[in-house]
C-alpha cells in the first residue's frame, strides 16, 4: 500500500522543470456537457496540467468569478456523480495529468472510498481540497488517497510559517500550490514586489517538491513573473472569464493558451 506508483503528475515534473502551465476550470460551466471538450481543447492547445473544479454551493476560498461559475454549474445540474460519468472517457482523449479541485463536503457525501475509486477509474491523478487541512488529511484521508494513486496537493501562502511549509513538503508528492498573495481566487493584472520576495523565499528553501504559483495569474505578464521564481503557474479566473464569453471554445482556448505561454513555451 505504501509503494507509490509514479503517476502522470510525477512524470510531468520529472520531464519539465520550468514554465509549466496548469489551467483550472469548473466542471459543468459554461454548459453542463462542456467538461470533457474543454479538457481536450486545453491539451491540444498546449496546457501541461488540467484542474477540474467540482462545483460547491459555498466556495469560501474563491473570489467572485469562480463563485459565479460554481453557481452556474450547479444551476446547470452538475453533480459529482454526473461529473464522474462525464469523465469516464477522459483517458481516451486526454493524456496530460488531471487533478480534481473542490471542497470537502461533496466528497464526504459521495463517500471518501467511493470518491477515490471513481477518481482512479477515470484516471484522475491528484486532488486539491482547500478545506481539508493537513492534520485531517494525514489522520483520515492519506491512506485512502494513496491506495488509489491520488496525489494530494497542498496550498501554502505568504503567511505560512517555514516549519509548516516543511511539514507540507514532507507530506506532498506531486507539487506544492503556492497561493500568490493573501486573497481568494481572482484574476489580477500585476504581480507586486512583495509577492516576488515571497516566491524567492520559498525557492531558497529548496523543497523536495516543485512549486506552481496560483491565484491572481491572468496573462502573459503575470505568468512570466510567476514562472521566473517557480516551476510554473496556475490560471483559473482569467480562463473562466474567457469561457464565459467564448463562442468557439476550441479556437478561443487555443489562442488563450498560446498568448499566455508566448515565449515561455
Amino acid at each position, binding site marked *: 500500500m505504501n509503494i507509490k506508483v509514479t503517476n502522470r503528475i510525477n512524470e510531468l515534473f520529472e520531464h519539465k522543470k520550468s514554465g509549466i502551465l496548469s489551467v483550472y476550470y469548473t466542471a459543468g460551466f459554461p454548459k453542463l456537457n462542456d467538461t470533457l471538450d474543454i479538457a481536450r481543447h486545453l491539451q491540444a492547445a498546449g496546457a501541461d496540467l488540467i484542474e477540474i473544479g467540482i462545483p460547491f454551493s*459555498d466556495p469560501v476560498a474563491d473570489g467572485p468569478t469562480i463563485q459565479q461559475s460554481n453557481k452556474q454549474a450547479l444551476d446547470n445540474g452538475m453533480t*459529482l456523480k454526473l461529473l464522474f460519468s462525464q469523465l469516464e472517457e477522459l483517458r481516451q482523449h486526454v493524456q496530460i495529468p488531471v487533478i480534481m479541485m473542490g471542497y470537502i463536503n461533496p466528497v464526504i457525501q459521495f463517500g471518501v472510498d467511493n470518491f477515490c475509486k471513481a477518481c482512479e477509474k477515470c484516471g484522475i491523478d491528484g486532488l486539491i481540497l482547500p478545506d481539508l*487541512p493537513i492534520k485531517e488529511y494525514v489522520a483520515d484521508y492519506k491512506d485512502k488517497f494513496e491506495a488509489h494513486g491520488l496525489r494530494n496537493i497542498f496550498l501554502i501562502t505568504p503567511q505560512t510559517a517555514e516549519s*509548516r511549509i516543511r511539514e507540507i513538503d514532507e507530506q506532498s508528492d506531486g507539487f506544492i500550490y503556492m497561493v500568490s498573495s*493573501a486573497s*481568494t481566487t481572482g484574476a489580477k493584472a500585476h504581480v507586486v514586489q512583495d509577492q516576488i520576495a515571497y516566491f524567492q523565499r520559498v525557492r531558497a528553501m529548496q523543497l523536495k517538491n516543485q512549486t506552481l504559483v496560483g491565484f491572481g495569474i491572468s496573462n502573459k505578464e503575470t505568468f512570466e513573473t510567476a514562472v521566473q521564481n517557480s516551476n510554473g503557474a496556475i490560471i483559473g479566473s482569467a480562463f473562466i472569464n474567457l469561457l464565459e464569453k467564448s463562442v468557439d471554445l476550441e479556437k478561443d482556448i487555443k489562442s488563450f493558451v498560446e498568448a499566455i505561454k508566448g515565449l515561455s513555451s
Partner: protein
Amino acid sequence: MSYLVDKNGYYGQFGGAFIPEMLHPNVEELKENYLQIIEAREFQEEFAQLLRDYVGRPTPLYFAHRLSEHHNAKIYLKREDLCHTGAHKVNNTIGQIILAKKLGKNKVIAETGAGQHGVATATVCALMGMECVVYMGKIDMERQRPNVERMRILGATVVPATSGSQTLKDATNEAMRHWISNPLDTHYIIGSVVGPHPYPDMVARFQSVISEEMKLQLKAATGNEEPNYVIACVGGGSNAAGAFYHYLDAEEVKLVAVEAAGKGINSGESAATCVLGKAGVLHGSKTLLMQTEDGQVIEPYSISAGLDYPGIGPMHAHLFETGRVKFENATDEEAMLAGIELSRLEGIIPAIESAHALAALSKISFKPDDVVVVNLSGRGDKDLETYIRWGKY
C-alpha cells in the same frame, strides 16, 4: 463522557477546523492564545466589569406566575432579553472584543442574519474605538432594515453579501473571504457556536455566564441550583450552549433544544437541522448540515431570521447524537402563538427566536413541581414588523 471540546478541537466526531490554508495562521493564532488570554485574571476582571456595568448583568431569573399556572409547572425565565442591545449576543461580542484587543487587532469583521449579532458587534466596536465591517445577506438587509440602520448609527460599515442565496450563510462566506484577504490586523467575531475550532468552544465559554448565573439564582429562589428542565432555542446554538453549559454533566437536568420547523418539517421550508441534516462540513467545522444528496448546502427557512442557519454548532451535533440534549422543534405558527401567549400572560414580548423555546412548553408533559427554566434569548422589538404582518393578536 465529556460534552466539551477535546484537545483536538472535536466534540465526538464533530468539530475540527476545516479551513483553507489561507486562514490557518489566523485560526492557529486564536487557538494558541485564546485560553491563556481569557483565563487570565486581567481579562476576567474586564469582562466581568463590562458585563455588569455595560450589559446589565446579572440578568434576572424571573418566576413567571401566570405562565406557570397556564402550563402547570414552575416556570422561570432567564431574562437575556434585558441585556444591552436586546439579546444574549452581546455576551459573546464583549468577550471577543477584549480578546481582539489583546491579540493586537484593530479591525473587526462579523456576519449577521437578523442583524442582532451585527448590532452587538457594532456596539462593542464603538465602545472600543475599533473599525467594524459587518457582512449581511442582501435579502436580509431588506428584511431587517432597522438593524441595518442601527449598525450604521453605531459607525459600522454594512456590506451586502450578494453571492449565493444572499442570506446568513453567504454573509458568513463573505466574512471568511474578507478574513482571508486581511490576515494580519483583523479579528473575525463569529456570532454563534459555529466555525472552526476554537470558535465553538470560545463562544460557548463567553455565553456560559448565562447558566453560571442561573445556578446561583435558582439556588436562592428554590434552594436547589438544578432545575428539572432548561429549554432554549437553537439557530447556531450560542444561547443554548450558554444556558446548558454548567448543567451538561448534571445528567438529571433535562436539557431541551428547540429548532425552527418553519412551515413544517416536511414542507421543504424548514430549519430543523437535527431532523433534516446529515454530517458534513461548512464554515470550518464538521457538523450536522442541511444539504442535498450531492453535498450542496440547502438554504433553510424560518419566520425567525436568527434561526435560519443550515447547520448547528458541532457541540450541539454531539449533544444530539449522544442524546444528552433532547431536540424539539416548533413551527412558525407555534412560535408566533407562544410569543403572543407570553405577551398576554407576562407582559413580555419575546424575540421570535426565543418564542420557539417557549413553544416547547406545550409539547412537554410537566409535573406540577417541575422547575423549568426557559432561556429568553432576546426581546421582540426587532420583530415588531413580523408580529404585525402575522397579525393574529
